[in-house]
C-alpha cells in the first residue's frame, strides 16, 4: 500500500458515458494514477464492495460518483461511499440532477415494469415474469435490489461536497476539477464546479432582442447558420444552461438541450426556461398565447426538464392516487 490519497469512482443509474468521459482526459489519466491510489472503479478495475465496507470512515480522499439513485442498491452504495469518503463529488448530470434516468419520474415503477417486461415489441414473456424483490428457491430466499418509484439525485440522497455538471462533463472541465481538488483550490462545499454564466456566452451565433410568435420543432425549419436559434423559434436551452461545453450543439445547428444544468443559484431549471420563453411570446391575447404554447411545445417536460426533472422543485409527475406503490404517508 502506498501513502497516496485514495480515489474511488462509482457508477449508479447512468449510461456509462461519464466513465468514458473520465478517460477523455487522455494521458493525463496517468497523472491521476500517479497522484491517487485508485481503490474502487468497477468499470475499469476489479474491486470489492466488501473491502470498501471494511474501510474506516473518510478513508477515501475523493469519490467521483456518477449516476442517479434509482434502486436500493444504488442508494446503499451512495451512503457507503459517502461514509467512507472525505470529498464526495456528484459527477455528471445524473448524479447532479437526475438527467435522462430522472425522466423516469414521469411514470411509476408499475408503469415502467409494464412497459419493460410486457409491452415493448421486442419482449417475449408469455409467463408474465417480473423481477421480484424476493424469490424463494430451494436454497433459501434470493433478493434483488428494490426498484424505486422516484429517481433521486445523489444530493437528495446523501450530502454532496461538489457537483460537476454535464452529460457527460467535458474532459477539460474534468481536468479543471481534478486539478482544483489536487491543488486544494476548491470553492466552498456544496458548490457546482463550473462556469457562472450560460451557454449563450460561448455561442458564436448573433443575438438580437427576442420576440417569438411560433415555437418550432427542429425538423420544421433549416435554421439560419448565423442567427440565434431561439430567435428562429427553436427551443434552445442555451439561455438557461450553464456554460462549460463550448456551445457544442448550437454551434453545429442543433439547439442546446440543457445537459449542463442550470446556472449558479438556480433552483429549478425548467422554471427558468418557462419564464424566459413565456416572457418573449409575441402576443397579448390569452387564446393566441395558449395556442402558441400548446402547438409549439407538445412535451413541456421533455423540453424544459430533459435533464433536471428529478432535481426540480416538483421532482416528478404526480403519482396516481390509487397506485399501490404509495407509501402510507400519502393517504394520511
Amino acid at each position, binding site marked *: 500500500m502506498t501513502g497516496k490519497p485514495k480515489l474511488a469512482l462509482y457508477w449508479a443509474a447512468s449510461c456509462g458515458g461519464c466513465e468514458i468521459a473520465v478517460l477523455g482526459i487522455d494521458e493525463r489519466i496517468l497523472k491521476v494514477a500517479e497522484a491517487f491510489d485508485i481503490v474502487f472503479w468497477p468499470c475499469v478495475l476489479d474491486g470489492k464492495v466488501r473491502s470498501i465496507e471494511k474501510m474506516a470512515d473518510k478513508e477515501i480522499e475523493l469519490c467521483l460518483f456518477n449516476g442517479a439513485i434509482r434502486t*436500493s442498491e444504488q442508494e446503499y452504495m451512495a451512503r457507503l461511499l459517502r461514509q467512507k469518503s472525505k470529498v464526495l463529488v456528484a459527477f455528471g448530470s445524473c448524479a447532479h440532477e437526475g438527467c435522462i434516468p430522472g425522466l423516469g419520474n414521469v411514470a411509476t415503477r408499475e408503469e415502467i415494469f409494464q412497459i419493460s417486461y410486457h409491452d415493448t415489441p421486442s419482449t417475449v414473456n408469455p409467463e408474465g415474469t417480473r423481477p421480484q*424483490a424476493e424469490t424463494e428457491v430451494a436454497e433459501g430466499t434470493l433478493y434483488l435490489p*428494490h426498484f*424505486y418509484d422516484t429517481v433521486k439525485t445523489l444530493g437528495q440522497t446523501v450530502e454532496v461536497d461538489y457537483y460537476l455538471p454535464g452529460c457527460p462533463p467535458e474532459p477539460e472541465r474534468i481536468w479543471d476539477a481534478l486539478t482544483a481538488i489536487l491543488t486544494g483550490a476548491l470553492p466552498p462545499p456544496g458548490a457546482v464546479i463550473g462556469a457562472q454564466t450560460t451557454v449563450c456566452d460561448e455561442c458564436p451565433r448573433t443575438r438580437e432582442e427576442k420576440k417569438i410568435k411560433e415555437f418550432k420543432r427542429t425538423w420544421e425549419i433549416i435554421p439560419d447558420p448565423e442567427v440565434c436559434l431561439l430567435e428562429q423559434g427553436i427551443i434552445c436551452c442555451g439561455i438557461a444552461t450553464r456554460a462549460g461545453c463550448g456551445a457544442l450543439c448550437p454551434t453545429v445547428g442543433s439547439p442546446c438541450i440543457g445537459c449542463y444544468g442550470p446556472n449558479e443559484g438556480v433552483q429549478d431549471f425548467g422554471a427558468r426556461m*418557462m*419564464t424566459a420563453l*413565456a416572457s418573449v411570446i409575441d402576443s397579448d391575447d390569452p387564446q393566441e398565447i395558449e395556442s402558441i404554447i400548446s402547438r409549439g411545445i407538445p412535451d413541456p417536460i421533455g423540453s424544459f426538464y430533459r435533464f433536471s426533472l428529478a432535481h426540480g422543485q416538483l*421532482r416528478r409527475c404526480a403519482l396516481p392516487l390509487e397506485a399501490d406503490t404509495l407509501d402510507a404517508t400519502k393517504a394520511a
Partner: protein
Amino acid sequence: MSDTFEPKIVAFLCNWCSYRAADLAGTSRIKYEPNVRIIRVMCSGRVDPTFVLKAFSLGADGVMIAGCHPGECHYLEQNYKAMRRYYMLRHTLRSMGMEDDRLRLQWASAAEGVQLAAAINEMIEQVRALGPLNWSANWHENGRRLEALGRLAQEHAEAMEVPA
C-alpha cells in the same frame, strides 16, 4: 381526517392593484376564508414560476397570481408577461398531473375588493373540492426501502466475506 380539509393557498399580489384590492376588502370588512396567505410583489410580472413551484413543493394546496387588469398594469404591460408565464406554467403543470384549479391567474383592480374576496373564496372552494395536494408525498418511497438497504449490508457481511 375528521374535519373538512382546510387548504393552504399562497397568493402573489401586485403592489398596485390586487394588493390594494386586498386592502380595500379589509377596510370594507368583506369577509373571506382565512386559507389564503398573501405575498406582496411589486408587479405580477415579478412572479417567477419558481415561486409557484416552490410553494407547491413546500406544501401549498393552491397558488394564486393576481395583478392589474390587462391594459391597466402600473408598469404598462408587465401583467401580460405574467399572463404568458401563467399559461406556460399551466401547460407544464398539466403534464405533471396537477389540476388546473390549483393555479389561478386573477385580475383585480384596486377598486375590486369584493371581486378579489369572491375569487379567493371561489378558489378555496375549488381547491377544497380537489383535496390536499401534499406534493412531497409523491416522493416517498415504498416503506420497504430501509428494509432493502439493511438487507444489502447483511448480505454483504454474510456472502461476500471470503473465508480465511
